[in-house]
């Protein structure tokens, strides 16, 4: 599959939020998908999810020994809806960020997509298959990194684990050698090949994990927090590797993470899930336009001014002898108006304009910005 087949970001424009609730947003998406099926002859989606739902039943006990004994005779369960009717479609070669707060339902969704968990309701198709029912066939075409646990054999050297994976996935010997050389070079694994997994650092383990996940050239890869706890250099290397895999092999990537740097670096499209519902599905640029209300301008100045007259919506957020940082609401004023106001009052030597910070935007969304926007 070529990367050229990736649809343009505009195809993933989010539903018009207008005055609609979360449920209406996801319902409108479902209806839109139902009403407008893919034209005949179009590519099969890599992932197609319809009204997916997962409910867990959690044992409920009263505190203390009496509670434990009572639970033996009258077990009670709380219903926890982890995923509540989500629908989405991912095209071959797309890299999609799937984000949300802890407990939002990200990992549960991924586990249903991989076939590990059985949905309580709804349907999942990955490369046209039901991933749970066609577990073995599905497993050949997908790769999964669960950031906190390894798929490799703890006591074996990395190369032994990779050799075994190559056998299990029936990778032809020549191709395996080629890929091993390539991955060893890209992920700097040469020194690690003879090291048992249990003796590796977190960063080394994650690089090894990526190699193990991608060595069979899966068509779809789920990366569940692949950079958790890693330093900047390792993160960078891992992001580059994922980008390269997507670019050269057209690998479809679903990435869940709390590190929005990963999302910005890798994904054009982001899906935000909250309390089991999709609350946003669209390009990162759209999210920034809609919710990146504030921007920052930093000025390098010859000398600070005692008091600045600024356009409405602009505030000083930091003032140091040689630096002045301002934040402005772009719905009330523009960067050029703010810059002009400052330059008319202070001797400015240089200035820079920061793009909206995705972390801050996502934080706003987690805190209910979509609800507020819908209510407005």
């Amino acid at each position, binding site marked *: 599959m070529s990367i050229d087949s990736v649809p343009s970001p505009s195809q993933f424009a989010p539903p018009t939020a207008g005055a609609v609730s979360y449920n209406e947003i996801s319902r409108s998406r479902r209806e839109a998908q139902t009403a407008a099926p893919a034209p005949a002859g179009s590519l099969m989606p890599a992932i197609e999810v319809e009204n997916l739902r997962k409910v867990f039943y959690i044992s409920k006990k009263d505190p203390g020994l009496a509670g434990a004994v009572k639970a033996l005779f009258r077990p009670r369960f709380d219903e926890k809806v982890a995923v509540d009717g989500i629908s989405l479609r991912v095209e071959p070669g797309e890299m999609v960020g799937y984000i949300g707060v802890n407990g939002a339902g990200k990992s549960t969704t991924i586990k249903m997509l991989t076939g590990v*968990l059985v949905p309580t309701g709804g349907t999942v198709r990955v490369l046209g298959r039901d991933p749970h029912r066609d577990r073995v066939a599905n497993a050949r075409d997908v790769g999964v990194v*669960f950031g906190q646990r390894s798929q490799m054999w703890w006591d074996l050297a990395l190369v032994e684990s990779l050799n075994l994976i190559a056998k*299990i996935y029936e990778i032809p010997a020549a191709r395996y050698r080629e890929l091993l050389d390539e991955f060893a070079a890209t992920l700097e694994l040469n020194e690690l090949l003879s090291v048992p997994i249990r003796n590796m650092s977190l960063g080394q383990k994650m690089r090894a994990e990526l190699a193990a996940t991608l060595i069979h050239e899966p068509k779809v890869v789920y990366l569940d927090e692949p950079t958790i706890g890693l330093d900047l250099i390792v993160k960078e290397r891992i992001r580059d590797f994922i980008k390269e895999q997507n670019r050269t092999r057209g690998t479809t990537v679903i990435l869940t993470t709390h590190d929005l740097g990963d999302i910005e670096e890798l994904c054009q499209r982001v899906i935000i899930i909250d309390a089991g519902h999709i609350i946003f599905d669209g390009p990162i640029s759209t999210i920034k336009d809609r919710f990146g209300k504030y921007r920052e301008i930093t000025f390098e100045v010859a000398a600070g001014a005692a008091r600045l007259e600024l356009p409405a919506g602009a505030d000083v957020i930091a003032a140091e002898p040689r630096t002045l940082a301002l934040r402005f609401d772009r719905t009330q004023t523009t960067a050029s108006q703010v810059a002009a106001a400052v330059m008319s009052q202070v001797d400015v030597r240089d200035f820079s304009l920061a793009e909206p910070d995705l972390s801050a935007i996502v934080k706003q969304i987690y805190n209910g910005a979509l609800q507020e926007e819908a209510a407005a």
Partner: protein
Amino acid sequence: MISYLRRQASIYGAIAASVPKRFLAFEIWFWVGLVLGAIEMMILVFFWRAVYGQTATLGGLSLDQTLTYILLAQVFAALADQDLIWEFGYNLREGLIAHMLLRPVGFQTNYYVQALASLATRMIMQLPMALLATAAFGLRWPTDLAAWGAFLVSALLGYTALFFFHWILACLTFYTTEVWGLGVLVYGLTRFFSGGLMPLAIMPVWLRTLVLAIPFAQSLAIPLNFLSGITPVAEAPATWLFQLAWVIGLGVVSQLFFRVAVRKVTVQGG
């Protein structure tokens, strides 16, 4: 068909070959296991000598016959070892079950092949115990090749039956996610009912009937009876058929259990 079988043999052969490597990753386990095994063997020999101090035969067996059986049971103790409950429990608790389910191989076949490889590895690691039993306690190895043949077939069938039985019990961990109590209980029952501590012939009739009605003894006591001369080789075909019935019955039930239980899987820790 041949190509398919060749491919499967290559995959599962590689999985089996990884087992001894994992066993040998921690050398200290080998030595500790050896010392503990030697101590247990010594205790059992002295125990049975003391028991026979009061009588010439027990359950129709002489001291020599019983000691031969007990020493062989110690050497072949791995036949009654199954780690499925602990493994399922560990994999569920650590969330590793997700990776196990994501391998493009038969889930049960994968475990079965590893269990067989683990059995072979443990058998080889028991060689020093065999030497000890021979040199220190005078174990006389059977020379009848037919007895060895009956033993090997019976051991394979019995081990397979026990694997399926443990598989059914291990599936319970999908519901409980807690295995300590179940694991300890099953370990204790297996040690006793497998016939690793005493020949079945010595047990009271009611207990022997009970033991033969449950699968534990199929993997150790029944095969060892051929090797130690307690069961005549002529009875081998009937025994094998009976064991095969266990294998088929438990195999079918274990598949059904797994199919239902796997739908209950939860992956701990996000």
